[in-house]
């Protein structure tokens, strides 16, 4: 039962009370508390349930390594599962709920799993639930899924109430970690003039030192930290960020910083998280070290804590961790905890030290306080329960017999320290085994390599395996200087601050407690708390042949929980090495992957949500359509009206109306999205002859020609009308999707293959608003505009014949008019400056009234072209179709010996007469063929699939003809005119369709030539 002490609490402000609730209960904490410290202060030792066995769990650590104390935070659109109580700063109104239990934390039905733990060992599910087959999906899996998972999922309709953003930053030296090593390294690097960025994940600087004591330059570490911070803040080549975690180190010096701006003060406005995208020449990882638990039975009972963490709770937050504490250790550092506890008035019942020879100065200091220290001893077992009550002590060197039982309500354990090597390792930094401290530390000779092939990460301080204050400050100063040097800033040698801490006796590697613990104890000795992986599980994995550390990890899930094994990895692989009679270095570690500590998906997505999730490209007439009933359809990044619906009209009715009206009166289409590429130069014609399958160099100035483009692989990729502007200038129209693609395609060939050609290309797509004026009345409306303006371009049949273009004035507007038609009607495509696009559109709509003008959308465009048998890129083509399939031989120049795709089209499969060919399709009953339907032939193929002989490429209801029309690719199609073939629908019906000529309407093209 822990409570607040009268003394200590360097991080809390006792004058500021903060109210919060836990599982509905209101509680009080202080400013500066973490949720974990506040809960402890309120006597809440049990904070959650474990993943598999639903065992009661309390907080074991004080930082981001915490595996147990995970909470559901917040409500409504700010709800968030799996938040660590230890990294959650307390704020008033905070609401927390413990997770993974039902109905309550105190009483959890699934705690039966604990009783069954003997059956539910590692990998049990691979061996069970095999029979009977259907039960897995319908019974077993649902049950397993329900009991697994941690926090409750957010509401299905949750819309995050917060926003997020990204920020790019460039630094010569990035220092990750704001402990004394980080600060010392930063100071050394900054002195060279390098631009330095320092990231500290916590809201307070200095790391462990203020708690661990010792002196720096003769004063308390805290004083030095304040001074150094002040110095660094004073330098304009240094940037310090707290609450900002170095989340990952990526190739070429890229690093992510995860800044938590409002987690400690929700709803204050502004982004919640900011993801820093940092590019650094050099990165110093001064990320400290993490204490390891000891593996003894019941080491997961609430009240059992890491020794240094318990010390943190006392010193930083003034927490009284218990009345009677047992300290268990294999090293000297834990004695600091004993001292701190004693000094705080907590009874230390025992210090149990596995070392026969015990420790050094710190141990003596403890003994002087009259605290009982027992050497060569171990914890045999902590009695199961919702909190510590009894601790059995035995000889370390035995099976756990001959126990002495002591009453205690808390246990502080220390199994030694492991440097935080994650960020060093993310990009391939290698590790070496440090025998003396029994841990993996960075191997300076094998760092991760940057773009120049040189190392770009330098470890510093405890993160580099240097634990003594003196040594680690030296190490850090050197690291900072080295990084600056490598970044091109020769160090002005900064002497390291002089650190002094008690001499420490050598620790002893202890992986199991007691050393020969029997199976019953091993089945209760936890390695990975959150995923409920015990010593016996790793041993089982080894026995069953999952010998690779990667197999063991995946078979037992060791280290796969949300703490990513920060506490368990080393202990686990030591057990594995032992079971394999191998050495720890031989077994090796699993791969370290970002993020160091989980980061919100919101932060990763950044600002890109809702309206600016992705750019929407809009034509100059967009707003008009939006106001006038546009039924929008995304076309690439553009948005185009599928149809323009009158009030109360559905899209189908609208389309039929638009089609009819365009054929009978006058239709307007916003064709601005069509690509427009200017191609200019003495070699322009020659160049286009290579790009298009047909001849462009022979095109006369003033005329237009329809052209096809193929990939080098022979497949049709784009089409459009090319206009010759002058002797060496062409304007090439592309499909809407094609503009950027084809522009890039042209540049690619000009730059990388035919760089001797004198050709320039410019993409002028968006310079123009291009409007198709279509229908029998097209000429009338243009002439009316001209008349009104008194003169203008002559748009008569004679002056502007089909497939020609002219520059001039249309009404008030400077325009270029192309007499081209994708509908078979009399049609002009008129380009005006985009800025005048809306005005021009308005003029046409106004003048067109008397001629029955109506805008039409993409669907009508498709139907009009289909009625005329014109192919559509993306419908008739899909990346596997060549022009020959579409009967476009007329567009394949015989004269040219080469064009892109020509060689490909000579390959055996491309000239195969069995290829499906384009035809028109007419349903026998006039109905509309289903989209994408396939025509079936006789029998099945070698794999028992029904033989298919064709497919529908586009199909519509033609309002003009009052029936369904379609185009399709059919085996030997053109030779089978009149034949009826069958298309089985997915609706159970079979559609019969007659093979016909693809031109359904105005076969001789009368209408467009008037």
């Amino acid at each position: 039962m822990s409570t607040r002490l009268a003394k200590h609490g360097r991080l809390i402000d006792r004058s500021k009370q903060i109210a919060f609730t836990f599982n509905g209960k209101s509680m009080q904490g202080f400013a500066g508390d973490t949720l974990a410290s506040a809960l402890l202060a309120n006597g809440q030792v049990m904070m959650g349930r474990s993943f598999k066995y639903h065992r009661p769990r309390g907080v074991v650590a004080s930082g981001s390594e915490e595996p147990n104390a995970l909470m559901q935070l917040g409500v409504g659109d700010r709800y968030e599962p799996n938040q660590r109580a230890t990294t959650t700063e307390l704020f008033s109104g905070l609401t927390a709920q413990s997770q993974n239990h039902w109905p309550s934390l105190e009483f959890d039905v699934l705690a039966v799993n604990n009783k069954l733990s003997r059956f539910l060992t590692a990998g049990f599910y691979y061996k069970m639930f095999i029979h009977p087959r259907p039960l897995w999906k319908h019974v077993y899996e649902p049950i397993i899924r329900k009991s697994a998972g941690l926090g409750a999922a957010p509401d299905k309709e949750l819309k995050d109430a917060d926003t997020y953003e990204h920020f790019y930053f460039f630094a010569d030296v990035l220092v990750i970690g704001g402990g004394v090593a980080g600060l010392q390294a930063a100071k050394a690097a900054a002195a060279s003039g390098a631009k330095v960025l320092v990231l500290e994940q916590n809201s307070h600087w200095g790391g462990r030192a203020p708690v661990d004591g010792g002196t720096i330059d003769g004063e308390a570490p805290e004083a030095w930290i304040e001074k150094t911070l002040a110095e660094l803040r004073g330098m304009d080549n240094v940037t310090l960020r707290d609450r900002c975690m170095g989340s990952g180190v990526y190739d070429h010096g890229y690093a992510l910083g995860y800044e938590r701006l409002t987690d400690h003060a929700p709803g204050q406005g502004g982004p919640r998280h900011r993801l820093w995208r940092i590019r650094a020449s050099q990165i110093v990882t001064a990320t400290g070290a993490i204490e390891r638990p000891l593996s003894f039975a019941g080491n997961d009972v609430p009240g059992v804590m890491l020794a240094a963490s318990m010390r943190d709770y006392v010193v930083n937050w003034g927490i009284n961790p218990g009345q009677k504490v047992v300290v268990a250790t294999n090293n000297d550092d834990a004695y600091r905890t004993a001292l701190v506890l004693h000094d705080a008035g907590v009874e230390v019942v025992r210090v149990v030290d596995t070392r026969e020879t015990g420790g050094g100065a710190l141990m003596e200091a403890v003994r002087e306080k009259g605290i009982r220290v027992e050497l060569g001893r171990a914890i045999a077992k902590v009695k199961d329960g919702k909190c510590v009550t009894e601790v059995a002590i035995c000889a370390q060197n035995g099976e756990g017999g001959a126990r002495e039982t002591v009453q205690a309500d808390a246990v502080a354990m220390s199994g030694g320290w492991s440097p935080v090597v994650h960020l060093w390792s993310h990009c391939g930094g290698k590790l070496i085994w440090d025998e003396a401290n029994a841990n993996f530390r960075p191997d300076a000779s094998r760092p991760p390599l940057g773009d120049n092939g040189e190392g770009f990460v330098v470890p510093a301080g405890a993160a580099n395996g240097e634990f003594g204050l003196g040594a680690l400050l030296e190490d850090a100063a050197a690291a900072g200087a080295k990084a600056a040097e490598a970044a091109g800033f020769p160090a002005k040698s900064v002497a390291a601050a002089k650190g002094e801490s008690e001499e420490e006796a050598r620790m002893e590697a202890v992986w199991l407690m007691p050393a020969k613990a029997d199976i019953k104890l091993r089945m209760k000795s936890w390695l990975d708390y959150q995923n409920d992986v015990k010593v016996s599980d790793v041993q089982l994995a080894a026995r069953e042949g999952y010998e690779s550390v990667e197999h063991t990890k995946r078979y037992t899930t060791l280290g796969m929980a949300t703490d990513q094994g920060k506490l368990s990895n080393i202990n686990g692989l030591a057990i594995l090495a032992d079971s394999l009679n191998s050495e720890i270095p031989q077994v090796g570690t699993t791969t370290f992957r970002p993020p160091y500590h989980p980061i919100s998906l919101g932060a990763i997505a950044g600002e890109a949500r809702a309206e600016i999730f992705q750019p929407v490209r809009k034509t100059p007439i967009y707003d008009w359509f939006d106001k006038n009933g546009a039924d929008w359809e995304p076309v690439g990044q553009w948005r185009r009206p599928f149809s323009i619906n009158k009030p109360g009209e559905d899209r189908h009715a609208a389309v039929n109306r638009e089609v009819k009206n365009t054929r009978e009166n006058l239709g307007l289409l916003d064709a601005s999205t069509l690509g427009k590429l200017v191609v200019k130069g003495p070699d322009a014609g020659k160049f286009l002859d290579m790009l298009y399958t047909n001849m462009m160099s022979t095109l006369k100035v003033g005329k237009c020609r329809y052209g096809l483009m193929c990939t080098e692989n022979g497949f049709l990729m784009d089409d459009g009308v090319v206009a010759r502007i002058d002797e060496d200038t062409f304007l090439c129209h592309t499909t809407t999707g094609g503009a950027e693609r084809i522009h890039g395609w042209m540049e690619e060939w000009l730059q990388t293959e035919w760089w001797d050609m004198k050709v320039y290309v410019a993409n002028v797509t968006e310079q123009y608003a291009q409007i198709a004026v279509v229908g029998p009345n097209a000429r009338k409306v243009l002439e009316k505009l001209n008349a009104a303006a008194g003169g203008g371009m002559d748009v008569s049949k004679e002056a502007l014949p089909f497939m020609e273009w002219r520059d001039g004035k249309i009404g008030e507007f400077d325009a270029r008019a192309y007499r081209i038609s994708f509908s078979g009607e009399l049609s002009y495509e008129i380009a005006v400056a985009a800025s005048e696009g809306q005005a021009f559109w308005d003029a046409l709509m106004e003048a067109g009234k008397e001629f029955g003008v109506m805008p039409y959308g993409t669907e009508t465009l498709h139907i009009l072209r289909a009625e005329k048998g014109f192919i559509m890129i993306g419908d008739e083509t899909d990346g596997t179709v060549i022009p020959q399939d579409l009967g476009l031989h007329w567009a394949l120049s015989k004269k040219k010996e080469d064009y892109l795709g020509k060689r490909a089209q000579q390959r055996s499969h491309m000239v195969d007469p069995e290829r499906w060919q384009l035809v028109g399709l007419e349903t026998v009953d006039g109905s509309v063929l289903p989209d994408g339907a396939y025509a079936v032939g006789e029998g099945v193929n070698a794999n028992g699939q029904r033989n298919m002989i064709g497919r529908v490429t586009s199909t519509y209801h033609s309002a003009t003809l009052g029936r369904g029309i379609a185009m399709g690719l059919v085996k030997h199609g053109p030779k089978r005119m009149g034949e009826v073939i069958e298309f089985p629908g997915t609706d159970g019906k079979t559609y019969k369709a007659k093979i016909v000529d693809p031109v359904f309407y105005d076969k001789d093209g009368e209408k467009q030539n008037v």
Partner: protein
Amino acid sequence: MSKAVSVLNGARFSGLATVEDAGLQGMITLRGDLGSKALKAAVKAATGAEVPAQGSISVAENGAAAWMSPDELLLLVPYEDAVAKTAEVSEALKGEHALAVNVSDARAFFRLSGEGAREVLGKVSPVDFDAAAFKPGQFRRSRLAQVAGAFWLNEDGSFYIICFRSVGEYVFKLLSTAAHPQSKVGVY
């Protein structure tokens, strides 16, 4: 004639920095041999500015020339003069292998000004905006979040930003979001 409207039609947002429609701006894409005398002369004549050095913009009274690539410049001229000046430049470069096209209407044009300008741009563009790294007169083509864009820094600390017309609205919203009054980073 006032038929012409800029894509943002005068839109403006004020937060960490001020984002505003910089209105209609004459722009001419000029491709050619940047070393040629004729071209230098044509640029001078059209804009009053010299051919800029790599990665920079040279500004004159009422015109400017920006370096787009080794064989491309963007000439800035008054909107009304764009058509005429495009013709002049083409005329002046007759005989040379060059291409001049009016792209004034294919662009959206912004001004980003105020204290936070560097920071705001730093949220959407993978470019170092540290005062030591990005100086007045520098011209950079890069990314504005998900679209291509170009920008340069003026003596007064404001930026001009250019993107394609069709995404003008996206970029305006993007910059406005980045300029949220409570999103100060505080590094520049």
